[in-house]
Every structure is written in structure tokens, then in C-alpha cells.
């Protein structure tokens, strides 16, 4: 009886492990890219990212071939005061999500290589862990007409 139960348990664990490895480890949704405002050179990107792997993942950087540089920043709100600072990495725990959203984490995309036009496809390269790379895309929209 014990052997049978152990077999079922091992089979279940194997099934769960296979499920965890069957898809991409990170899944992004709700991707928004806002074009630079008049007189400014920084676009901004927001999205939700879900870790569907069986382990913690660290996002170490986000770049775009259409921009000269990019940085992950975080706006914090403490006692009603907004502060912004650069963030080195973003940890996404297993089976959880992290939101890049207004008033929180966001991606600053600075100095477009070419002029960015409305509805142009912007590519974001999400670098994670040692050599992980995930590519997502979204159309650039003006703030006035999201």
C-alpha cells in the first residue's frame, strides 16, 4: 500500500513539474508604451509580468533597440510625497506577478534612435536571471489618447 501511495505521489510531482516547464517562464500582459511628451526624450512602458516557472526570477534589465538607453525606475509614495529612483533588479516570486504601473515600477526608454511615431511598434527586451531573454511588443501611444 505504501509503495502504491509513493508511486502516486511521485507521478503527481512529475506531472506538476512537467506542467511548470511546459510554457514560457514569464508571461507579460497589459503592455502600454507612452510616447515622449513634447520637449521630452523619454518614453515610458508599463505592463504586468507573471512568473509561471517553478522558481524565483530576477529581471536584471529591460532594453529596447529603438532607444539609446533604458532604465527601470520606481516611483514611491511615502506620506503623500512622490519620489523616483532607479531599480537594479526586480524579483518576481514563483507563481506571482509584478506590475509595472503608474506611480510604481516603470521602464524609462530614453532618446529614441529614430523619431517615434504614433502606433509604431516598440520592442522591449526583458533580461532575466543569468541569460534569460523575453521579448514583448506594444504600439506607442500618446498620453492624450491612450
Amino acid at each position, binding site marked *: 500500500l505504501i509503495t502504491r501511495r509513493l508511486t502516486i505521489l511521485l507521478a503527481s510531482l512529475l506531472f506538476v513539474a512537467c506542467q511548470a516547464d511546459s510554457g514560457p517562464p514569464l508571461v507579460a500582459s497589459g503592455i502600454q508604451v507612452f510616447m515622449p*511628451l513634447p520637449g521630452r526624450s523619454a518614453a515610458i512602458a508599463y505592463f504586468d509580468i507573471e512568473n509561471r516557472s517553478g522558481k524565483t526570477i530576477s529581471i536584471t534589465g529591460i532594453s529596447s533597440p529603438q532607444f539609446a538607453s533604458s532604465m527601470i525606475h520606481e*516611483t514611491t509614495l511615502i506620506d*503623500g510625497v*512622490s519620489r523616483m529612483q*532607479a531599480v537594479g533588479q526586480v524579483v518576481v516570486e514563483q507563481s506571482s506577478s509584478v506590475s509595472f504601473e503608474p506611480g510604481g515600477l516603470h521602464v*524609462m526608454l530614453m532618446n529614441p534612435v529614430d523619431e517615434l511615431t504614433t502606433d509604431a511598434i516598440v520592442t522591449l527586451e526583458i533580461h532575466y536571471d543569468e541569460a534569460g531573454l523575453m521579448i514583448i511588443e506594444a504600439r506607442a501611444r500618446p498620453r492624450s489618447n491612450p
Partner: protein
Amino acid sequence: MSTQRNFLFVFFVAMAFAGGGFFTYLAFMGPPAVPIHATVLPEPRSLPEFSLLDQAGNEFNRESFSGDWSLVFFGFTHCPDICPATLQQLSLARAKVTADGDKNFPRIVLVSVDPERDTPEVLDAYTKHFGEGVTGVTGTLPQLMNLTSSIGIFFAKSDQEDGTYSVDHSAVVLLINPDAEFQALFSAPHKIEHFVDDVPLITGSD
């Protein structure tokens, strides 16, 4: 005895109808609407005398608030996140409210807390992006402090690792009444619905 019993019967029937009517009234009319997102000051506070410049280079002072309701946000044009997000939310709230038939949504005023970089010309291009009814205001540091210190608005320059600077600042949105008095405030984080729901209730244009 029979008369007394009849009287009691009529009394209880009347009470039942009255109670039913009262609860029907409540169910259909609901309690009077009050702002639930904004903090309304018990007594509006007069703004101090101050002197700034609007995006056209004209003087913008206490009198500039007279006659109209205004939603006032303190930010700066190099702010990539919360400042444009708040102006976007205010603009979309105004578009929603005016589309619903209320043409009296307050004007939106951005007071720049970055006098080094935000000239009237810079503010002119920036505020136009958010549509009509958005005013950009700036001034020297002492001029700004004269206004902000009296109404509890904080701002301070903050050096960044890349050699640039940001400005830490209060993220509140103030509602100024047509008598140039500070009447209510919306605390961050902001949502479009907060302004759509509460502004008409406070300004009385609902």
C-alpha cells in the same frame, strides 16, 4: 371595545403603509450623495497672495483663481511617471464628465516645482498635449515656496545616479473654489473615477 380594536387595526395598517413608503423612498432615492474619495475641508482656506507666470508669460496670481473652480497639481515636465499620469487622469476625467453633459468641470493647473528647467515656453508645449483647459504655471524658487509652504505642499530637488536630477514632490491634487480658497484635496494614488465621482458633488454642478 370594538371601536378600540378597530382603531388599533387602522393605526397598525397606517404605520405599515408609512414604513413601507419610507423604505421604498430610501430604496429608490438612496441617501444624499457625498464625496467619498476627496477630503473636503470643514472650512475653505484662503490662498495667500502669490505671483507666478503662466505658460504664456502672463502673471498668474491669487486673483487668477477667482471665478472658476480649479484642480491644481504640483509636478514637473521631466517627471516621466506620476506627473503625466495624473494630468492624463485629470484630462480623461474632464472628458468623461463633459461628455456626460456637465460643461463646468474645473480647469486643470500644473504648478511646476522645477523652476530651473520648466520655463513658460516648456510648459506651453507640455500642457497643450493634455488638451484645452490645462494651464501651466512656474516661477522662481522663492515665489513657488511662498505658495507651497502656506498650503502644505512639499518639494525638493533629488540628485540621480546618472548625473541628472529629479524632484520629490507632494502628489496631492487640490480643488480650489471660485473664491480662490483651498476647499478639498484628492490624495494619491489617483484614479479617474475619483475625480469623475467627487468633483461634481463638491462643485455643485452634478
